[in-house]
Structures are given as C-alpha cells and as structure tokens.
C-alpha cells in the first residue's frame, strides 16, 4: 500500500468515525442525516483504499439512501421509556465493547487452519454463493431490499388510507 492509499485510508477512517459519532450524538434529524452521509462517504473511501471499489460504490449508494431516510420527511420520532440509568449502562457497555474490540484488533492476525464444514459442506456452499455466483447473490439481496421497501411503503399507505 503506497503513501497515497495510506493517507486515503486514515482520512477516510477519520471521516467514517466522526460520521458514526455524529449519527449517535447530533441533535436534529437533518444533522444526523448529514452525519450518515459523511459516514457513507468515509466508508466508501476506506473500501477504495482497501481495493474494494465495487463495495465502495454500493456502500456509498446505500448509505446515502440511509441518510435520505433519516433526514427525509417520512421520519417519525418514537420516544422510548427507558430510564436514564439504563441508557448510561448501555453507554458503559459500548465503552466495554470498544475495549474488547481494541484488544481483539491488537491481537488480530491470520492463522493457518483447516475447517471441516460437516456433512453439508457449508464451505462449498458459501464459496458458491459468495465467490462463484456473486452477482446472483447480490441480485437476491437487492430483491429482498426492494421487497422490504415495498412492504414498508404499502404498510404505511394502507395505514394512511384508514
């Protein structure tokens, strides 16, 4: 990885982290939508610097869609009744998760291992779906996305018609 890629990786990582924190902390939905778009741009930059250009394009489109959903007029706020103590416990849990993941990242490396996938040979199935027939799997995922979006839209329109 040359220095240009390295700079791109670190800058994009910073944008991604700041965008993620913005989604968590920004007050209004407009600002949260902007933060989500920044996170998507940072994520796409990280993918490009990791030589995953196709994933970068898809991630950019999907996260811009997420930003539109968060900042759009269809957004409705639902206040939960969780007490402040449980929210603080959750935040402390997120900090503990960060510590655990940082330790795992520090110890992260590749190992040489052989995995027996059992009588179904799930490794071969995974290779077929995720390496050999990649575009077919993507098409099924896009179909599921369209079905979910259509179901949500139909659900809300039916509710509005009542």
């Amino acid at each position: 990885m040359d220095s240009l890629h390295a700079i791109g990786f670190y800058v994009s990582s910073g944008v991604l982290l700041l965008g993620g924190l913005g989604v968590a902390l920004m007050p209004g939905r407009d600002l949260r939508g902007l933060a989500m778009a920044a996170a998507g741009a940072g994520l796409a930059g990280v993918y490009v610097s990791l030589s995953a250009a196709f994933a970068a394009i898809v991630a950019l489109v999907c996260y811009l869609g997420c930003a539109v959903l968060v900042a759009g007029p269809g957004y409705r706020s639902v206040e939960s009744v969780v007490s402040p103590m449980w929210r603080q416990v959750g935040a402390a849990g997120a900090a503990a998760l960060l510590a655990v993941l940082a330790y795992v990242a520090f110890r992260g490396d590749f190992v040489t291992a052989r995995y027996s996938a059992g009588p179904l040979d799930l490794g071969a199935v995974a290779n077929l779906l995720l390496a050999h027939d990649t575009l077919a799997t993507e098409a099924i995922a896009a179909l599921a996305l369209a079905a979910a979006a259509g179901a949500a839209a139909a659900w809300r329109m039916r509710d509005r018609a009542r």
Partner: protein
Amino acid sequence: MTPTLVAVFFVAGGVVAAGAFGAAWRRDASAAVASIPVMFAGVGVAFAGVARFAAAGGQHLLGQELAVLLAIAALALLGLGLGIAGRESAR
C-alpha cells in the same frame, strides 16, 4: 505509516462501538435504529480488510461480497425500522 490488518481492525472496532453507543444512548427509538447501519459499516470494514490483506492465493472476493451484502442489509433494515416506527407513531 502503512495501514495493516490491525489498523483496519482498530477502525472497525471503533465504528462498531460508536454504533453501539448510539443505539444505547438515544432516547428516540428511530434514532437508535439509525445507529445500526453504523455498526454494519464497522463489520464491513473488517471483512474488506481481511479480504485485502489475505494475500495467499488468488483473489479473495468473499470479504468484499459480505461488505456489499452488509451495506444492502443496513439500508433494508433502516427502511423497515423507520417504516414500522412511522406506522406506530401515526396511531
């Protein structure tokens, strides 16, 4: 300073933790749901990093493929979650 697998994992862990913090901290359930794509982004970075640095033998598309699927799943999940939230708040 050349990025390594460890650096990628650090970034991925930070992003996942930021998403978990947002999901736990926000009082608004819709805003909490909006933090889930951030967590998915962290997981996708980890998968893409493994695919990038696993140099032994040919192309490793599996990690990139999972990163793409995670991005699509994040959008679908957020759309469904906000759709349900809009329906519930309209009642």
